[in-house]
């Protein structure tokens, strides 16, 4: 099958890749670009482990085609930290022990960043509903929500 040439931007860096028309953005990231920070939990948009942003919009990359990245700005977990400094959200996830196995963590961090960009001062309920698309089986979400609320508070102070 003929591959399509795609020019895109990932985490602010220009990237080109070839993919088949049916390849998902998730598979392109993981298998073509070796960006394995984005995880696959279900492949059907139900678990959020593959959360990325496309032009600032939070999506499941398993539901986006690789060719749709043409001309777009893609944001993945690898682009959250700046140089060698963790993002506040990443730091708070560590401090609150908001991860156990960690497989859902990249998706949750991408989603939390999207949440706090949309709504810097969410209530606990708003945070829980915004993150309802990111499944975590280990933690029961308690420490995740605490990390999110703490991140929001710190980031409001930084802004």
């Amino acid at each position, binding site marked *: 099958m003929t591959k399509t040439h795609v020019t895109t931007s990932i985490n602010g860096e220009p990237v080109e890749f070839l993919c088949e028309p049916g390849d998902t953005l998730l598979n392109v990231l993981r298998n073509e670009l070796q960006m394995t920070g984005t995880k696959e939990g279900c492949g059907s948009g139900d678990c959020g482990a593959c959360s990325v942003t496309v032009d600032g919009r939070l999506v499941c990359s398993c539901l986006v085609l690789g060719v749709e990245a043409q001309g777009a700005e893609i944001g993945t977990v690898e682009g959250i930290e700046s140089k060698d400094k963790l993002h506040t959200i990443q730091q708070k996830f560590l401090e609150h022990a908001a991860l156990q196995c960690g*497989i859902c963590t990249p998706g949750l961090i991408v989603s939390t960043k999207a949440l706090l960009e949309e709504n810097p001062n969410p209530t606990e309920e708003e945070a829980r509903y915004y993150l309802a698309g990111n499944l975590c089986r280990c933690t029961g979400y308690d420490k995740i929500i605490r990390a999110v609320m703490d991140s929001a508070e710190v980031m409001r102070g930084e802004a």
Partner: protein
Amino acid sequence: MSEAREFKYIGQRTIRPDGYDKVTGRANYGADLSLPGMIWGKILRSPYAHARILNIDTSKAEAHPDVMAVATYQDFPHVSSETFQGGEAPTDLLDLAKNILADDKVLYHGHAIAAIAARTESAAEAALSLIKIDYEVLPPVMDVADAMKPESPVLHDDMFTQGLEETPDTPSNIASRMELKKGDIEAGFAQAEVVVERDYYTPTVHQGYIEPHATTVSIDEDGQAMVWCSTQGHFDVRASTAKLLNMELGKIKVVAAEIGGGFGGKTTVYLEPVALILSKKSGRPVKMIMTRDEVFRASGPGSATRSRVKIGAKKDGTITAMQAKLCFEAGGFKGSPMGPGCMTVFTPYDVENMYIEGYDVVVNKPKVAAYRAPGAPQAEFAAEMALNELADKLGIDPIEFRLKNAARKGTQTVYGPKLKAVGLVECLEAAKNSPHYKAALGENQGRGLAAGFWFNIGGQSSVIINMNPDGTGTIIEGSPDIGGSRASMQLMAAETLGIPASNLRPVVADTEHLAYNQTTGGSRTTFATGMAVIEAAQDVVNQLKERAAAVWNVTSEQVEWVDGVAINTAGEEKLTAAEICKGAERTGGQISGTANINARGAGPSFAVHICDVEVDKETGKVDVVRYTAIQDAGKAIHPSYVEGQYQGGASQGIGWALNEEYIYNEDGIMENAGFLDYRIPLASDLPMIDTVIVEVPNPFHPFGVRGVGETGIVPPLAAVATAVSNAIGVRMTDLPCSPPRVLKAIQDAG
């Protein structure tokens, strides 16, 4: 460990050393390794729940240019029925082989039959349709009650019930029966003034780890294999793979990737031996990843059960007799957790007369695997529901009722040993004193409480601590870290050595770098591997003292080790660990501590959970509005990750109680094999989960540790179902308490 002691490092909420890689996406999980020349493997699965395989024709697939290898059951060297330690529980080699690639029968929808390796994942997937299989379709047996009937279709012609006085001469679906008893059950019920007897049901559920099973395998010309995989026990993956493929253990290196959840479900093998066959045949590295659909249909869920429990008590609340019949579905092959179910069902209670029988029954569902405290949630659900009903009948508060009958130090268990120091009474007292238990309930709300027990295990662990010339160290351990255990290892080593935790780097080594380590299961890691870490660290301390003694020309008995510093008791001198390590070359060479242990004395952990729910009586929807998990940790090494275990167990148990179940159609095909329809709790489904860490030290661990990982999933089933029952005024006996079932209960009660 007899009295409370002050700790310098233990109990701190340090940042886990592997956390940085996990919040940045750098951590490598089962699906994250790619190798040069790697190809992709896919599995052809049965479209029927029960069928005989008449013929498999792989010729067209093998001839396809994209296909580089095909594997079927015939590719296993001869395997025979043989029991060996291949994971959390003893495994039958023949069953394991037939589960990985079916021989002459498929026993569940999704049962693996053949595998293909091709240049790309999509080419492998497409080529599966080239394999032609002729089936004789058989009627499926989908429920343990049906499977136990004499007229039921039989899954295995050679299955003759074990554990009866006389082995029957006709085959059946009952693989085995067991019985546990103490006292005189008839006499016990004769003394009872109030009796409750009921049937209970729990559905097939899945562990629901977010990371699907995945592996990448390679083998060289010398037959030396490398297996990278997502597993709770890489040493047991090695054992299983070697047995199945008739290879020497030393010919297989298994690397445990970071693991994206397991909960018992990653204690056996599905893909690894198949990938190795494909790699051998193709001469290429092979990667295999299950889809979510495959994980649901063809990995190892937790058993569905049907139970009957009968409990009798005197009017003053003294329980006189407890009786249970526990029927466990094993899936297509024998091996349900009937044993631990029978052993745990009544263990929270000190009651003279008990009689428990268990049945291990095959049905046309996937072969079950361990799921967090395997067997205990199902069994103790039935027991705790009956106890709560009995407490109501007696008009006694459920905590007081349990306190009156609670197991404690010296209680004779039904399965053998007497309990040593345990913390059930302390958990019940903590529940009684909690603000949650005293809080008022709102309209349409109900409260439920339940206790839970799990044994915990010890077992074999191997640890090496290498000290570096600058006084930092590396803790090399072999227990896949499923929930933050490396942070605990770091703290226990730091406490023993007197060196800051951040100076000690814990790593999980592959099978070539350590002696055997038992699988991460049975809540053993912080206890048993922790003991090995402490012993290895003590070995390092002894060597550091000897080196200091050599410098000072005194005996090592004259050297004291205090907070990471050697002190010459015969003089004034001191040497830090870093100074001794720096000079190690001149005092005898490298400093490295080792421990190879088979840990005994795992302390059981008891828990008590309190749950408040609110029920929408028009729809039957249940919301958990408040939840408190109280559990004995012995000693919490890293309190955050102990709380995390309590919260995670509670959350999985809440899902089990309220929503989760395998739904099958009449052909035995699962209809909800995805996270949209098999609904595990979402962030929006749960409240904060309050925790209380009770610490009754385990006398057999240097720091008092008890395993904490599993007990927390035991109480929620009954705590939640009791809360629902109390909210609607109807006793729920079948799980899950999903909206349709709750609504029907409300309507039936009229």
